[in-house]
C-alpha cells in the first residue's frame, strides 16, 4: 500500500474540490437525544465544516447508500396487449467521507454477497463503484465490540484512509482513484517522522479497543446451544420490529413486490429491506410460517450473523458496531446474548 501525508488544509481543499463535482456524504450531527448526547447520521454536506469527524458512531450505517431501504428494480409500461420494461441502475457518483473501519468492513462483507457471489447485483455494484470512500481512524465507540471481530482495522475497500496526527493526516491509499485525488491537493511523500507518529497513534488506538466478547468458535457453540434457554430469555423480549436489521451495516435481506399505477398503465417492481425478525419473514405459500415465534426468529438472526455467513464466506457477518444493541428498545444486546451463550455452555 502507498502512503502520503496531507495537511489539514490540503484535506479541506480535497473536500471542496470534490463538492464541486459530486455529492459528498459524511457524519453530521442532526440533533441531541433526551440526555443531550449528540446524534449523528451520514448525510450530504455542503461544505467541509459540516463534517464532524469527532462522532462516536452514527445511528444508521452507511449501508443504505449502497442498498437503499427502497429501490425500484424496474418499471413497466403496459400498451394494449404488450408491455415494455425499463431498468436503470446507473447512478450519480458520490463520495462518502469519514467512515470508520467497521463500516468499511461491512461494505467488504456486502461485496462478497452482492459483487462477488454467483448472482452479482448490478444495482449494488453500480453504487459501490461510483462511490469514493474515505475512511478515518477513531477511538472506540461505547458498546462497540469490533475488536473481537477483527473489524477495528481495515486494509482495503476504501479509496483513502486517514489517521489524524494532530496537524496533518497520514493517508493510506487504497485505489488509483484515491492516488489521483491526492495528486491534485499536493499530498507529500511520507517521512520517517510521519511513519513514527502514525505507528505511535495506531498503537495508542489499538490499546483503547478491548475485546469485549469472545467469538472464536462461536459457530460450534451456536450448534451446541441450539436448544438453550438463552434464546427463550432474549427472544421473549423481542418486539419483532426489525429495527436491528435496518441499522445493521450488513443485514441485507429484502422483499420484492410489484405495484400497479392507479391508471393501470404503468407498473413498478420494488425491492424493500426486510428483517428476519419480522413475523412473516419465513411465511411461505399457503400461509405456513417456519418461524412463527420471536424466540426462533431471534435465534436465526444470530445464526446467520455468526454461523451461516461463516460457512459461506469464511467470516462472521457481524462487524461488532453494536448499532442493533443501541437501537433495540427491549435492550437486546449482542454482547449480552453471546456472553449468556458462553456462560450457558460453562454451567
Amino acid at each position, binding site marked *: 500500500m502507498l502512503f502520503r501525508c496531507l495537511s489539514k488544509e490540503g484535506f479541506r481543499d480535497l473536500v471542496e474540490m470534490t463538492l464541486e463535482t459530486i455529492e459528498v456524504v459524511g457524519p453530521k450531527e442532526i440533533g441531541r437525544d433526551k440526555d443531550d448526547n449528540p446524534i449523528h447520521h451520514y448525510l450530504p454536506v455542503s461544505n467541509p465544516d459540516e463534517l464532524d469527524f469527532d462522532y462516536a458512531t452514527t445511528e*444508521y450505517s452507511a449501508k443504505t447508500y449502497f442498498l437503499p431501504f427502497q429501490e425500484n428494480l424496474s418499471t413497466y409500461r403496459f400498451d394494449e396487449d404488450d408491455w415494455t420494461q425499463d431498468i436503470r441502475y446507473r447512478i450519480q457518483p458520490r463520495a462518502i467521507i469519514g467512515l470508520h473501519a467497521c463500516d468499511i468492513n461491512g461494505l467488504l462483507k456486502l461485496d462478497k454477497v452482492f459483487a462477488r457471489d454467483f448472482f452479482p447485483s448490478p444495482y449494488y455494484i453500480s453504487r459501490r463503484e461510483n462511490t469514493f470512500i474515505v475512511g478515518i481512524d477513531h477511538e472506540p465507540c461505547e458498546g462497540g465490540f469490533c475488536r473481537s471481530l477483527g473489524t477495528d482495522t481495515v486494509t482495503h475497500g476504501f479509496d483513502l484512509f486517514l489517521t489524524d496526527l494532530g496537524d496533518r493526516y497520514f493517508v493510506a491509499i487504497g485505489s488509483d482513484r484515491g492516488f489521483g485525488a491526492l495528486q491534485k491537493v499536493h499530498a507529500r511523500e511520507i517521512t520517517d517522522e510521519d511513519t513514527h507518529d502514525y505507528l505511535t497513534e495506531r498503537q495508542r488506538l489499538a490499546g483503547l479497543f478491548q475485546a469485549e466478547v469472545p467469538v472464536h468458535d462461536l459457530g460450534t457453540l451456536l450448534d451446541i446451544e441450539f436448544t438453550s434457554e438463552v434464546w427463550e430469555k432474549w427472544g421473549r423480549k423481542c418486539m419483532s*420490529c*426489525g429495527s436491528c436489521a435496518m441499522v445493521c451495516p450488513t443485514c441485507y435481506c429484502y422483499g420484492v413486490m410489484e405495484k*400497479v399505477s*392507479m391508471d393501470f398503465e404503468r407498473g413498478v417492481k420494488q425491492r424493500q429491506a426486510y428483517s428476519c425478525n419480522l*413475523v*412473516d419473514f419465513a411465511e411461505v405459500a399457503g400461509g405456513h410460517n417456519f418461524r412463527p415465534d420471536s424466540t426462533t426468529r431471534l435465534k436465526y438472526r444470530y445464526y446467520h450473523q455468526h454461523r451461516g455467513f461463516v460457512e459461506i464466506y469464511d467470516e462472521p457477518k457481524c462487524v461488532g458496531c453494536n448499532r442493533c444493541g443501541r437501537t433495540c428498545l427491549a435492550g437486546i444486546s449482542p454482547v449480552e446474548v453471546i456472553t449468556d451463550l458462553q456462560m450457558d455452555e460453562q454451567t
Partner: protein
Amino acid sequence: MKYLGIESQRPKIGVFDFTGCEGCQLQLANKEETLAAFLSCIDVVCFREISSASGEGFTIALVEGAISREDEVERIRWIREQAEVLVALGSCACFGGVNRLKNDFDLDEANREVYGDQPKPTLPVRAINEVVPVDLEIPGCPVSKAEVERVVQHLIWEVPFRFPAYPVCLECKQRYTVCVFEMGELCLGPITRAGCDAPCPAAGLGCWGCRGPAQETNFEEFLSVARERGFSEDEIVDRLAFFGGFRGIA
C-alpha cells in the same frame, strides 16, 4: 380500461358516513395526481362530500365513522344488505375511534356534558364490525389514500393486497427517523400496524396507534419498555385507549 388484457368492470361504489369527522371521506378526494385515474376506475353512485349523485345499486360500500345512534344501526344494516362488499374506512369504522372514549363515561352524563339541556338520542359507540359483518377494514386516522387505492385495485382486478404485518418501527427506521423514545416521548410504534409510513414520529410526535395492533404484538415487553422509561400507567392506558384499536389487549 384494460389491464393485462382484461377489461375492468368499473364497480359501483357508495361512500357513507356515520359518527366521525368525515376526514376519511375527504382523503378519498385527496392525492390529486391520481384522483382522475381513481375516479375513472370506479362508478361513484353515492358520495355526499364530492357528488350530488345519490343513487342506489352500489356493489361496494365504503363506510366511514362509528355507530352511535339507533338510526345509524338501521342505516348500516340497510347498506350491508345492498352491498356485496362492505369496507370499513378509518379508525372510527374499524375500532370505534376517538368517539369510543365516550363509553368510559355514564351515557346520560356524557350527553349532558355535550348537549346541555337538549340531550340527543345516543348509544354506546360501536365499531362497524360489532353491528354488521365487515369484509375489509382499512384502519388509520385518517385512512391513507394510497392504501385505499390498492384496496380498490384489489377489488377490481384482484391485484394482490396485504397490510404490512410488522409494526411502525420498521417504517420509522426506513425513513431515518430518530426514535421518539430517544427524545423522551411515549410511542405506540412498536405494537402498531405499519402501512402509514410513520408520519407522526417523523414530525416528533409519538405514535397514537390509529391503525391498531400489528399482526403480532409483544404487549408485555412494550409495557416494560414504557414503564422503564418513566411513563405512568395513566399515560400508557390513555394512549392505548385513544383510538380504540387496542381494546382486548390493553
